């Protein structure tokens, strides 16, 4: 067993990793609460946006313009998807709606592989200006980007919770996610509220994609399927509480990195999100059946 001082640096990196998971985990829950769809294409949309930004930067487009395009791409693509596939699937089970987003994931994943092939030892990366500089904790430099990543999680958590609770649009979104038809009967302009929810969440996907491309790696496979690991945090919160998602993401990140110096477990540490999620879900379900919050509870 390594000494405590050997664990110390991993607290810093674990928090940074927790921030990475929180960024997409919180995004997933926000979207689920606003639209009733578990948007599994979250990672793929962000990845594609980041690749487009990368391609633009290679083409000498100024950085800020490329980042803007990345974020808008996320918003627009998600809006288009929501407008086209939202209505026909609206009355289907949450599960079917989630699986449909896997369809979008595969389409985007294939498209990225075609457009930006990994040939010839090509390596791509995105650097944000906030990478340069930062401050030192326990002998490690923490970049501003990492801090923004973590902060974005906090801001998102607080912001969206407040938005969903206190604004009219937010209330409408929650109502709609719960039951679209009754909400419509109550005179809420369902299509417009839905469009706002999809667009807003797409913007989140775009921002997360850009940050994750910097923090993790600009790689289609990694970013697309990072969503599976991040999902663990969302699952621990049972897709409901944004705050619990955030906390779970931080815990997963910390546990993951604190296992690094333990030789026997170090190669198994990537199982952390899955194992923690499985334990949490099975623990919750030990007495009663857990099902998606949908009509049964409505």
């Amino acid at each position, binding site marked *: 067993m390594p000494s405590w001082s050997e664990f110390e640096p991993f607290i810093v990196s674990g928090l940074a990793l927790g921030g990475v998971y929180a960024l997409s985990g919180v995004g997933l829950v926000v979207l689920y609460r606003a639209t009733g769809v*578990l948007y599994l294409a979250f990672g793929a949309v962000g990845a594609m946006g980041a690749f487009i930004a990368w391609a633009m930067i290679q083409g000498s487009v100024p950085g800020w313009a490329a980042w803007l395009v990345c974020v808008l791409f996320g918003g627009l693509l998600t809006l288009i998807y929501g407008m086209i*596939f939202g209505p*026909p*699937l609206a*009355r*289907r*089970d*949450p*599960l*079917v709606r*989630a*699986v*449909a987003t*896997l*369809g*979008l*994931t*595969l*389409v*985007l*994943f*294939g*498209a990225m*592989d*075609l457009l930006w092939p990994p040939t010839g030892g090509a390596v791509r990366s995105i650097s944000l200006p906030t990478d340069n500089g930062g401050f030192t904790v326990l002998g490690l430099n923490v970049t501003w980007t990492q801090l923004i990543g973590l902060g974005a999680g906090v801001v998102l958590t607080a912001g969206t919770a407040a938005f969903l609770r206190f604004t009219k649009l937010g209330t409408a979104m929650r109502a709609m996610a719960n039951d679209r038809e009754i909400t419509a009967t109550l005179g809420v302009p369902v299509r417009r509220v839905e469009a706002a929810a999809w667009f807003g969440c797409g913007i989140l996907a775009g921002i997360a994609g850009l940050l994750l491309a910097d923090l993790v790696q600009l790689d289609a*496979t990694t970013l697309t*399927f990072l969503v*599976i*690991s991040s*999902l*663990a945090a969302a*699952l621990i919160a*049972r*897709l409901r509480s944004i705050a619990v998602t955030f906390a779970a993401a931080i815990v997963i990140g910390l546990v993951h990195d604190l296992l690094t110096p333990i030789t026997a477990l170090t*190669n*198994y540490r*990537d*199982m952390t*999100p*899955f*194992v923690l*999620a*499985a334990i949490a*879900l*099975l623990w919750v*379900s*030990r007495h*009663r*059946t*857990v*099902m*998606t919050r*949908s*009509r*049964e509870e409505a």
Partner: protein
Amino acid sequence: MTVETKGGAAATAAAQRLRLLRRPQRPAHLAVVVVFAAFALFALPPLMSLYYTGYMTLVAIYSIVTLGLGLLVGRTGLYSLGQGAVLQIGAWTGARLLFATSQPFPVVVIEAGLVTMGIGTVIGLPALRLRGLYLALITLMLAGAVTVALATVNFPNGGGGFTGYNGTSVHIPPIRRPSIAGTDPAYYRYAVVVALLMFALVYAHLRTRPGRAWAAIRQSEPAALAAGINTTFYKLWAWSLASFITGVAGAMLAGQARYLYSINFSTQDSIILLAVALMGGVYNLWGAVIGALLMQLLPAILQNLGVSYAWLTILFGLGVLQVLTTAPAGIADQFPKDARRLGGLLTRLARARRPGPPRPPAAPPGTPPQAPSRGEAT
């Protein structure tokens, strides 16, 4: 699967599903199955190059996997996003036993199925308390965990110890095949026979008590409970049966590939598997065969045409969206309808031709059978 309490649409959907579920029981299908099996076993091998023989063996093996997935999704409404991991467990067990023992191949195949079934049941017991989306997601989590664990444990390559992995080997021995099926065509026939047996096993289940219980659960779980059906038991039964046949498929895969690597398997595979199972059709046993053809034969053909594999990923994604929005019963249901429609079109054209006009100028009977997919509503 959540209970749909909505009026009109849900009821029609349920009625439609019931109709779909009943379909394979028509007697005419037996003749089709016999002809199909005879064709696959005797006519196909001499016609195929060794290239396609290899891929068709994979089709036979993966049709067992999609069969298991179809059983879960179509019959009991349990969406699994972890079948790729179940297949890995079967393949690992099969490979380990084939290296470690000199037992006859069929024994190993059954043992791999049983071990996988055991693991599947142990996982399924608590997991089946979860419903719908949560169950799908927890299977995805478990698939992720298994993939990471096997990447570190590695697949057996003839080494010793529990894992059977020798990292220093510079001459990795191949995994053995049955003595009667050493060559590729022979192993292909062997795989087809195993697949037929697995289909027969599932079919037997569907025609008897478990099948009826599953159908009741699929329609409405509370109603099934009220009717005195032990829903947990029958759902676990479906889960275990699917694990068993997927484990069998895994052992067959070990014999086909002859070299297994953890890098062959990824969590995405489970997603692709669900995609092709849905595209093939989960309410119909033929759907499993179609799903396997999509997953294994289509890439082989596209490869020969020089088309990038990425296009296939895109196609699978579009297929999922299409199936979920417009054609819930998949190609297995769509194709006969379209074929019938095409047949009707052709006869009409032929009739129109008989009176004498030289040739209808615009007669495009060669259009893809999939295009008119919006006619699915009765």
